[in-house]
């Protein structure tokens, strides 16, 4: 019995759902929760999401793009573009830290949503 325990644990971990499984879900609430989990990880989640853009399912790819849009701050981003701050104060803090100027795009609507 004791010998079987590690194997059972491995099998259990293999079966545990990942956030990507959540984005693939037919359940919109589960998909939304998975998207929130990715957003909570911030920019660190971008490499994994870029890989997920290769998912064969179109709905999953659309959801992945939605998360990437929010993380990057730009609608339609594939995660390999500009990472936008959405707060001028946060941009100033980073600009001071990196001694760089700030490019501030002012626009109507939101840049991380369709049809801005």
């Amino acid at each position, binding site marked *: 019995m004791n010998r079987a325990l590690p194997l059972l644990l491995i099998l259990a971990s293999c079966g545990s759902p990942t956030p990507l499984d959540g984005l693939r879900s037919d359940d919109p609430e589960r998909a939304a929760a998975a998207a929130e989990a990715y957003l909570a990880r911030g920019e660190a989640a971008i490499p994994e999401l870029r890989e997920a853009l290769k998912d064969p399912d179109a709905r999953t790819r659309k959801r992945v793009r939605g998360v990437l849009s929010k993380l990057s701050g730009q609608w339609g981003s594939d995660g390999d573009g500009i990472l936008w701050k959405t707060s*001028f104060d946060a*941009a*100033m803090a980073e600009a001071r830290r990196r001694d760089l100027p*700030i490019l501030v795009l002012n626009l*109507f609507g939101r840049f991380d949503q369709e049809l801005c």
Partner: protein
Amino acid sequence: MTFSDRRVIEWVRTNFVACWESVADVRTATFDLGGGRKVTGTTGGEMAIFFCLPDGTVYDVLPALHSPQAVHAAAVEAAQFHDRLRVSKDREEEIRSYHRTRLAALPIAVESSKRQVYRDRHAQADPATKDLTRMLLSKAGVFLPTESIVVVEPGGMKFYKRRIHELLSQGGPRTPLALRKPVFETILGEPLTDRGAVTHSWDSPAPFSISESALEEDE
């Protein structure tokens, strides 16, 4: 998509901290065609890029939407100007002087008479006609069953940039928030209020000629 262009992406990522702010809602106009059919599109939707020092002081502005090439060129120039400001002992005067010099070197842009006629006609039109002409002739978004498409007419640099130089060659507050109203409302002619969703009856628009209105060549 200007900010999906590799030249722009690489330059901005390396030389700037990028930030966006929404100045107001998008304005959408819906025309009720009857029988449950509707046409909805965005009207207006200018943008402006403010180049700021790390303390938030605006030192240059690129008004309106432009091609990736134009945005890249402006960002290169802004980064170079920032290098000068970094070592300047009087940044305020350096900024004013920079814009005075640029203003003096910029030829005065003369609006063609046909464009002026179109502008006057547009100013006097009823709201529905204004919205429909803007949807069709300039910044336009069309909602289709399968996707939404935004088509934007870039340009206006020769008219707008001169006024930016005039604005920044003077003193006064220099934050993006303080400059929002003069840049959007005074220079770009894009109101910050009267946004959101508007619905018109299809009976409202007056007849107008697209081909005639679109003519912008000098006579």
